[in-house]
């Protein structure tokens, strides 16, 4: 029994961990009240997927995918493709975070807060003002 | 080199003429003077009538006039097929468009109506759709024009843009759109089980395609759209509500385009899609016939209790349209020809009545029958026309209503349906009881109503069309084939449908 668990953990354990990280991230995005925390959780989520891809690319008898004279067989290198993909994914996540941060700045500028509850209250107030002020009474 | 005058292309032209007129009127709109709008309408109306009339000899000779314009959906063409049944309706619609146009001009000017651009544009659109309906060669082409008609009538119903109009408009849309969408679903089902949509005299659905309970369901899904437009009870209540519209619109709704489109839809579905055998086998025709009987009797009684002239006429329409439905559902060549001819007969009689009602309203601002005592003195010509049409509706010999009713009754007798015969005769008497009081009140001898002493009859633009329609309804009563050979066409249609069975 123990060996079974051990082999499972050795083989698939890392995937379980990334799954856990992903769930944490998603839960955080949904549950957190503070928009900054939501953004951080979003990053956690993205990192989880990056880990997932990197784990895919890993194999034990393999070296970094840079051509060397001593290693000629392709099977001795690890697969470079997931790394390449993840470079792109990192760039995308960087872009998303950047956009998110700048949006947060604007929200803070306009609402004076980045707590969701406060903002909802503010928004309700704005709607009421619009209804009364925007049109003739 | 295409022959642009070819017979096959003419139905397309007939549809396009009014479509173009409608587009022109809407686009030019307020930029042109009222005269130009009316001129466009008149020119289009005359062109359309000429095109439609030019098809009659070929149809009478039995020539097939088929045109596939282009593929409208995968596997089915946008097709026109000019057959005698469609020809009858097309002749009525195009003839009456000329007359209602003249009348509209008089009415709209006399009454100083607003929103005339939209009015004339929508009117032309309705006629485009009505002609399309007549010539449509398959279900989808038919449905397209049917829905266009539904939508194009809406602006006419809400013409006055007031609260009452809005409510009637909603009611109208609720009835017609719901039934139209169910019709759509039924067309899809029919197409998927039969693989064809072309109208065939005698129908194309067989028992193998639709087993019994489903056949009845699909039958009523399809017929629903038709009987809503035709105002068969209990689906009639949009029709009296739509009375808020201006009188020429009511005339159009009731006599020419909309309700007749409903009756025509019933005809196509019962006799050209399901066919007499299938309609009988699934009990659809029987149920529908009883609904029509019920409507004929009940609507007459309701009409008696209405004192608004237009409302009384509306319930009369409800009843008369059920004659057509009943005639179709009796499923004999005679009754079918009678039903088709009743489209003609009712159109000319009812339009006379409505035009007279409108002329009374514009000239004296009277709507209530009880206020019309002695009006015959001021408006003798109008009221004479009204009287002629009323007698016609009741089905007196030498009036056009007699020809159609006699045929329907002959059909009912040949099928051995005494109840239907009794209904038809009783309803003739009932029609007298609700229309004759108007005539009697108008020509009451010993009353001196100072209101009606002077002022003269209606304006010529209103008077001329209504006299023409009254005269036509008498001429057609004496010689049903006069002019356009409409009776022959109706009989041809009846024979076409039932010949394969005999």
């Amino acid at each position, binding site marked *: 029994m123990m060996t079974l668990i051990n082999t499972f953990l050795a083989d698939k354990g890392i995937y379980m961990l990334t799954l856990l990280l992903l769930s944490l991230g998603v839960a955080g995005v949904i549950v957190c009240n503070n928009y900054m925390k939501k953004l951080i959780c979003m990053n956690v989520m993205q990192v989880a997927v990056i880990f997932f891809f990197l784990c895919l690319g890993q194999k034990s008898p393999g070296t970094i995918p840079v051509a060397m004279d001593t290693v000629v067989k392709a099977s001795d290198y690890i697969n470079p493709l997931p790394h390449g993909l993840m470079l792109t994914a990192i760039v995308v996540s960087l872009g998303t975070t950047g956009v998110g941060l700048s949006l947060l700045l604007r929200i803070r500028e306009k609402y004076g807060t980045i707590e969701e509850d406060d903002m909802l209250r503010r928004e309700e107030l704005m709607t009421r003002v619009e209804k009364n002020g925007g049109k003739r009474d | 080199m295409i022959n642009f005058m070819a017979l096959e292309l003419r139905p397309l032209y007939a549809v396009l003429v009014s479509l173009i007129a409608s587009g022109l009127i809407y686009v030019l709109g307020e930029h042109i003077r009222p005269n130009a709008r009316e001129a466009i309408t008149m020119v289009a109306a005359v062109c359309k009538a000429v095109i439609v009339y030019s098809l009659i000899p070929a149809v009478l000779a039995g020539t097939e006039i088929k045109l596939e314009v282009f593929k409208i959906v*995968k596997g089915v063409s946008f097709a026109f097929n000019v057959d005698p049944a469609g020809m009858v309706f097309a002749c009525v619609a195009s003839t009456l468009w000329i007359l209602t146009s003249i009348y509209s001009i008089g009415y709209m000017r006399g009454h100083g109506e607003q929103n005339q651009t939209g009015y004339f544009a929508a009117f032309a659109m309705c006629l485009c759709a009505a002609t399309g309906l007549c010539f449509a060669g398959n279900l989808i082409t038919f449905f397209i024009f049917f829905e266009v008609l539904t939508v194009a009538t809406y602006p006419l119903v809400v013409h006055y843009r007031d609260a009452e109009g809005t409510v009637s408009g909603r009611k109208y849309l609720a009835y017609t759109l719901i039934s139209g969408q169910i019709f759509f679903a039924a067309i899809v089902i029919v197409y998927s089980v039969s693989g064809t949509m072309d109208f065939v005299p005698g129908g194309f659905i067989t028992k193998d395609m639709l087993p019994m309970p489903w056949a009845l369901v699909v039958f009523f899904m399809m017929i629903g759209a038709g009987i809503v437009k035709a105002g068969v009870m209990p689906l009639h209540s949009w029709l009296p509500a739509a009375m808020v519209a201006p009188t020429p619109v009511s005339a159009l709704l009731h006599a020419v385009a909309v309700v007749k489109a409903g009756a025509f839809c019933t005809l196509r579905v019962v006799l050209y899609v399901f066919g007499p055998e299938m309609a009988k086998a699934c009990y659809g025709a029987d149920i529908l016939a009883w609904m029509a009987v019920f409507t004929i009797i009940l609507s007459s009684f309701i009409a008696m209790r209405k004192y608004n002239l237009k409302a009384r006429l509306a319930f009369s329409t409800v009843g008369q349209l059920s004659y057509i439905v009943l005639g179709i559902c009796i499923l004999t060549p005679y009754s079918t020809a009678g039903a088709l001819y009743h489209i003609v007969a009712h159109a000319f009689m009812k339009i006379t009545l409505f035009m007279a009602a409108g002329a009374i309203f514009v000239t004296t601002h009277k709507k209530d029958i009880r206020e019309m005592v002695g009006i015959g003195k001021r408006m003798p010509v109008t009221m004479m026309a009204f009287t002629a049409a009323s007698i016609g509706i009741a089905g007196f010999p030498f009036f056009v209503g007699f020809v159609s009713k006699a045929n329907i009754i002959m059909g009912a007798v040949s099928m051995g349906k005494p109840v239907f015969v009794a209904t038809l005769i009783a309803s003739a008497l009932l029609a007298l009881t609700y229309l004759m009081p108007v005539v009697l009140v108008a020509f009451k001898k010993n009353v001196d109503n100072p209101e009606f002493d002077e002022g003269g009859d209606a304006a010529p633009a209103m008077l001329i069309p209504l006299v023409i329609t009254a005269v036509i309804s008498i001429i057609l009563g004496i010689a049903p084939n006069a002019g356009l050979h409409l009776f022959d066409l109706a009989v041809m249609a009846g024979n076409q449908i039932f010949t394969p069975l005999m």
Partner: protein
Amino acid sequence: MTNLIGNTPVLIILLPLCSALLCLALTAVSKNLGSLVVKISCLGSLVLSVIQLCMVVSGGTIHYAIGNYAVPYGIEFVIDSLNAVLLVAFSLMGFLTVIFAGNFSDNKNHFKTAGAYAELALLITGILGMTSTGDVFNLYVFLEITSLSAYCLISLGGSRGVVSAYRYMLVGTIAATFYLLGIGILYATTGTLNMGDMSNILNEGGHDGAMLVAMCFLIPAFGIKMALFPFHGWQPSAYTHAEPGSRPLVTGVMGKVPALAMFRFFYCIYGTDFRFFRIALMLLGILSVIGMIYGSLMAMGQNDIRKILAYSSVAQIGYISLGFAIGTPIALAGSFLHMLGHAFMKGGLFFCTGAIRYKYGTVDINDFGRIYKKMPLTCGLLVIAALSMIGIPPTAGFFSKWYLALGAAGQHEWIYIAVLVLSSLLNAVYFFRLIEKVFIRQSSDLKTRWESEVLELPVTLIIPIVACFLAILGIGLFNVKIIDVLLMTLEGVGL
């Protein structure tokens, strides 16, 4: 010249991409040069995509290997008849939006305007890229380009816009992450990222488990991006508060491209032999049906025309996914026809609202009383687009509904036909409410901001309106030609 024609698939995407990058720099040179370059590049894409459509129709599917890297190692663009048609529609919509957007720019701050143009060009790049690509990871990249530029465009619509953009960003990123995870699993199973190659390997069988897990991630991912019920939460506020100039593109096209991607995964990669295919279709069908009814019901309660249209999009996306759920070639063709038609209907309705807002500064339908007298052309499009949404012939909406219903009847899914009917009736309720406001309600005293004797609107507003009008009728009347072209591809993939 032959080089140019041979490279159309990539040029279509490169043109707006380059113009987006150049836009700000050129604005520094001359204040209108940047936006002009964007407009020209979008026109270029449009012309090229039309040429490409002709090539595909006559010569069959185009396979284009980017940089001549051998497939399946390099990125491949696959332009089959489906893509080619959609590319034309999307680039046309993009071009119209770019023209239209000029009227809503900030005249004082040219760099802000140029930035908005750059984002718009990027959005077009992303959309066209997602449509053309045949590589699952490349799809992700374009998906993110689309999303990021959409976040920015939505945030430009005032303070509400910023909040909606932020919320959309959070949800959108979850979708993107799920997508990445889904293709990660598929990649681990097959070792390839090329769609065609992946499909071949998966169809050898024995991968059902991994495919199922991947599908569990992919359905929410696409669901969120296309605003399929129940993943639509971000959509109404984002559509409502997006920057007015770009709104037609955001609302009309952005939701369709993920739907195309979903189709690719369901039908082109997984294929109909997938063991759980029927179950997935049923799930999709249930979601679509609920979405169609829910969206229409929500739209009925709104007064802001933008919100009405946004909720109606939830319903209309349901039509598209319903076609996928039915799955026969004819129903799929209906879906794609609806995708085309709806791009122009929804885009057109937003062109109308934009025009009314431009002229009178209002978006509340209660202010629209008899506006048709002042803006006949705009209201003409409004009516046609509304009728098309309801599905009245001969507009585009009727015919897509026809094919969907026909497909449903072919599969004996009677309930879908009933829902189609019900949904059109619900659409009729709120669209006729809108028409009533426009045509019947007493006119309110609106101050016009545009004075002209001859035209009701500036030419740059009239062009998109007329184009949408013609497109809606054109797609309706000539649907058979489009369906034939679509079926060239769809015949092979449906049930």
